């Protein structure tokens, strides 16, 4: 789960990291009054959960409250990478001397958090990794021991931090580490961390991604989810405990198991089709869950055909079949459907579905080809 800049910085501030004075708003006239409070010279920043806001014109520095309102109006009218801007952060403008990158994430191979710093702040770290890899310093943090002072000091030394700022910098690294740990984050990033002319170090921009599996420990963070930033389908899927990713193709897929769902997409692609989505109904799915899954799929206007691929194990084929039938009764559709049912109670399931007007398939290849053909037939018609 991604947090907005304004949310991330708020969490940083709670862990002792200095941030600029500022406030989130959803309307331009409030942007003006916030700018007045902050002394006039402010930065107006689009709050959207994608990168590249700066390049898209979503970040503007202005000198007066009136200009702030003007910029706010313009930015609230923008879309950035298809996402409409609904929220703004109005921050005091600060006097930037140096921009540093400071972030922490998990290193899967070493199985521990890694803190990353670079004197090349203000640009994406992946960009620095490509163009200037020796400008990136990493310290790996023992998950049982936590971040140690000497590691923070090493980052300070390697980013050529002026010595008078080491103490501040070390305190910020600790704050960042605490934020990361205490929110169950998988990424916490300050970019840029700036040395200002007059106010010491400050986190100018921030980004936090939370581990969804850790949210049960943090109900207050779970509430920070910005539902407006999600596709309606994703919201619906989460509600029913389904894993769903929209892809944009024509063949809707409902599969039990993440690996099999990916393989189903891959096989559709292999035979020349294009999958509309990834959808894993999980193990032991109930008829209700199956029904919800189908409604999410058929709501997608791109979908021309639906492929059900169910390998019964814990999930029972008859249960799935009943779910499919229930969903179709509730929301009738003309979309062609191909069903492949194998494993536990597959026979019973196939028997139930035989009553509905559905094509069945034995192998995955067979199912994919039938679904593609059906989708083409729909398009041609």
């Amino acid at each position: 789960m991604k947090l907005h800049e304004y949310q991330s910085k708020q969490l940083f501030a709670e862990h002792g990291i200095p941030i600029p004075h500022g406030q989130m708003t959803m309307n331009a006239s409030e942007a003006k009054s916030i700018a007045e409070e902050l002394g006039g010279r402010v930065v107006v920043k689009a709050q959207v959960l994608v990168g590249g806001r700066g390049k898209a014109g979503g970040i503007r520095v202005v000198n007066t409250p009136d200009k702030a309102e003007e910029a706010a109006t313009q930015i609230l009218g923008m879309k950035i990478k298809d996402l409409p801007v609904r929220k703004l952060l109005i921050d005091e403008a600060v006097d930037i001397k140096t921009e540093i990158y400071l972030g922490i994430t998990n290193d899967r191979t070493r199985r521990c958090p890694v803190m990353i710093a670079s004197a090349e702040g203000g640009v994406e770290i992946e960009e620095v990794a490509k163009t200037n890899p020796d400008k990136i310093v990493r310290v790996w943090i023992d998950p049982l021991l936590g971040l140690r002072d000497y590691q923070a000091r090493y980052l300070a030394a390697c980013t050529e931090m002026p010595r008078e700022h080491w103490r501040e910098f070390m305190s910020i690294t600790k704050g960042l580490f605490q934020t990361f740990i205490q929110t169950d984050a998988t990424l916490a990033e300050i970019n840029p961390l700036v040395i200002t002319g007059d106010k010491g170090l400050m986190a100018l921009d921030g980004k936090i991604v939370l581990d969804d599996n850790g949210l049960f420990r943090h109900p207050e963070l779970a509430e920070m989810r910005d539902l407006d930033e999600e596709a309606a389908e994703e919201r619906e899927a989460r509600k029913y405990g389904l894993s769903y990713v929209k892809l944009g193709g024509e063949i809707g897929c409902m599969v039990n198991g993440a690996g099999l769902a990916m393989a189903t997409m891959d096989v559709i692609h292999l035979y020349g089709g294009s999958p509309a989505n990834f959808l894993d109904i999980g193990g032991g799915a109930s008829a209700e869950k199956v029904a919800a899954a189908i409604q999410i799929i058929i709501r997608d206007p791109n979908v021309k055909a639906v492929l059900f691929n169910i390998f019964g194990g814990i999930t029972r084929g008859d249960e799935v079949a009943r779910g499919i039938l229930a969903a179709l009764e509730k929301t009738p559709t003309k979309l062609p459907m191909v069903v492949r049912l194998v494993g536990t109670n597959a026979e019973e399931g196939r028997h139930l579905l035989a009553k509905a007007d559905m094509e069945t398939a034995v192998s995955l290849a067979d199912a994919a080809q039938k679904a593609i053909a059906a989708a083409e037939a729909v398009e041609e018609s």
Partner: protein
Amino acid sequence: MSILVDKSTKLLVQGITGREGLFHTARMIEHGTSVVAGVTPQKGGEWVMGGKVPVFDTVKSAVEATGSNTSVIFVPSRFAADAILEAADAGIALIVCITEGIPVQDMMKVRRYLDQMGVRLVGPNCPGLLSPGTAKVGIIPGDIAIAGNIGVVSKSGTLTYEVLHALKQNEMGVSTCVGIGGDPINGTSFVDTLELFEADPHTEKIVLIGEIGGKDEELAAAYIRDHMTKQVVAFIAGKTAPPGKRMGHAGAIIEGGEGTAEDKIKALAAAGVMTADQPEEIPGLLQ
């Protein structure tokens, strides 16, 4: 005939009195597994499976009373890290964690601790182990595979069943099927399992089922190139997965350009491993 689980397995089920615990314990017993004990805090003293399996409050007391050497975990995700540590501390040598949804930070701590202790963990978020006809620990349906000389190792659940099913249809048997799970931080890796299969005299060929995310398949490719004498064939799921999106499994995500199916297939090819375009082609590659 198998690795990790066999007739010497004396299984303990953590979370045995839950719905899943009870259901799968029955399936494991049906498959011939020796289930010697269960653990559910506050339920010590009860008996399950028609009075055949005693329930204990703690793993330690269960191990002391029954000599269990392997544990399978069905407890909810928020208690699972603790359950793994409890098993390790009680002297269990092989821990199989089925539970999905354990926070990454919990797993980093757990893994670090287990490494110190030299305890083997399979999973979490995995279907477990099946040595067809001998024993099973976990949730892989027992009837979809027959005994034989092919080792299977996989990050996936139903995709693995798909492959087992295809092998069975071609009358090809399996020594052991190891589901290592698709979490970003887990226990036994592809490399660990390949090492076991290479050393197992009853395993002749190996099927590796990977997916996008991380570098485990690349590490496996390097290991195969440098250390394996047995044939390995592979399937990698997620060729069409978009970057930056988690595809169900917590670990199945392409991040910062890393973890693509292409990279993995390329690395495996460089190690002489043929990769199937679809799961059903696997038996053909093993001919």
